[in-house]
């Protein structure tokens, strides 16, 4: 079985046209792989480009060069060069993402937000909602909140909706951007258990965890992002 996620020589520079074309190089020559059942953690100080790497893997940021290869339905797809509709197909079935902040949709209930990725893959609405209920329950989100749109939820409540939405599918690759940042100890433990289950099921996980306890508990390897700092190669 091929490695689910391979990055090779990926580079990213932001060009700020409103600031006279100022170039802000973020990362250069990013190369690593994440195996099935492995949880790799991106390490390094704020601003080192950890989130940018995660967003490039999800196709949310464009990579300037290099390849981001995922195995999608038995074929290899390069996210860095794929057409938008291919990226959408990869997101639906192959690469999942738990973002740091929930982007709430007006009028859509927490339950439907969590169930949506399953519905998009053709699971019947009631079965998807059943799974969503089980996950929200496990993450200790009070049941009275389930039918409400999460726009007015607290940070921790929104994050748990986000986590449930990310973990509900069985995507072979799962990206985690600080999923435990605003959670209490009990809920952090739930997330660590969910991650352990994903690993046991063969999911390749790539994450950012600022919380050292969580990082130590879940990480199989730490990728030091400072080694991809632009200009290092020339030096």
């Amino acid at each position, binding site marked *: 079985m091929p490695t689910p996620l391979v990055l090779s020589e990926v580079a990213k520079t932001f060009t700020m046209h409103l600031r006279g074309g100022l170039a802000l190089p973020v990362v250069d020559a990013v190369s690593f792989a994440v195996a099935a059942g492995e949880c790799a953690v991106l390490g390094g100080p704020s601003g080192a480009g950890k989130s940018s790497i995660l967003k490039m893997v999800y196709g949310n940021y*464009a990579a300037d060069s290099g390849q981001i290869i995922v195995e999608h339905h038995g074929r290899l797809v390069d996210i860095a060069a*794929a057409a*938008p*509709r291919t990226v959408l197909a990869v997101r639906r079935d192959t690469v999942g993402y738990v973002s740091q902040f929930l982007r709430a*949709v007006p*009028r*859509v209930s927490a339950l439907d937000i969590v169930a949506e990725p399953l519905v998009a893959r053709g699971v019947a609405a009631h079965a998807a909602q059943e799974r969503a209920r089980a996950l929200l329950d496990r993450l200790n989100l009070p049941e009275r909140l389930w039918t409400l749109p999460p726009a007015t939820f607290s940070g921790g409540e929104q994050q748990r909706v986000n986590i449930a939405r990310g973990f509900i599918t069985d995507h072979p690759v799962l990206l985690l951007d600080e999923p435990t940042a605003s959670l209490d100890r009990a809920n952090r433990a739930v997330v660590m258990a969910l991650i352990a289950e994903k690993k046991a099921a063969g999911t390749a996980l790539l994450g950012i965890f600022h919380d050292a306890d969580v990082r130590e508990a879940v990480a199989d390897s730490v990728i030091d992002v400072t080694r991809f700092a632009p200009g290092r190669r020339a030096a």
Partner: protein
Amino acid sequence: MSEVTDEEPLLRVHGLSKFYGNRVGCQDVSFELWPGEVLAVVGESGSGKTTLLNGLSARLMPTSGSVSYRMRDGAWREVYRMSEAERRLLMRTDWGFVHQNPADGLRMTVSAGANVGERLMAVGERHYGNIRATATDWLGRVEIAADRLDDAPRAFSGGMRQRLQIARNLVTAPRFMFMDEPTGGLDVSVQARLLDLLRGLVREMGLAAIVVTHDLAVARLLSDRMVVMKDGRMVETGLTDRVLDDPHAPYTQLLVSSILQV
């Protein structure tokens, strides 16, 4: 490494340009739209969005370029080479057009039911009971109470008129819909309800759509892919969240940085 493309596009636009005298309406626009895909066209007033929409929807003869559509039988047809009758049939059946101002897309003096029923009659439905039942069903789907079926849309609020216009368009189960600022001029709460409704219907019916909007939040909520227009040209295109979160063109960066945060 191939793209995951087992099917064909629904619409192909190639080198579309429209000049008004020597002024540019839109210039050299090319893209493809796939079944079930929602494309947002964004840009400020005067950027060529409406010219492009009218050029695509057989309402405004382009100066040059082509618009091809894959018909239900699978055959590709150039929209501007069809006869007037064929084009009108296409617009009444397989296409929909939601105007910013519902009065432009509705008949304001006949009942809501007749507005929906009229498009059904255009595709050959003659049975009064069936037409009324289908119209009632559609009003329900756009959240208009059944007891308003016999009221004329001039007695409706702006949000209801817009929902009625959507029902009128969708009743023939089109595969492709044009929307021109569908939430423009509505209160934010009414806008949220309409967006939620549109999102659901588009997904449920597998509709492909082109949505013209100047509201980037609407584009993010409704569309998969985005085209940014400036001075009649496409300055950037790509996955909607990529364009909004990592804008490349100077103009897109300006647009994104101009959004007011709430």
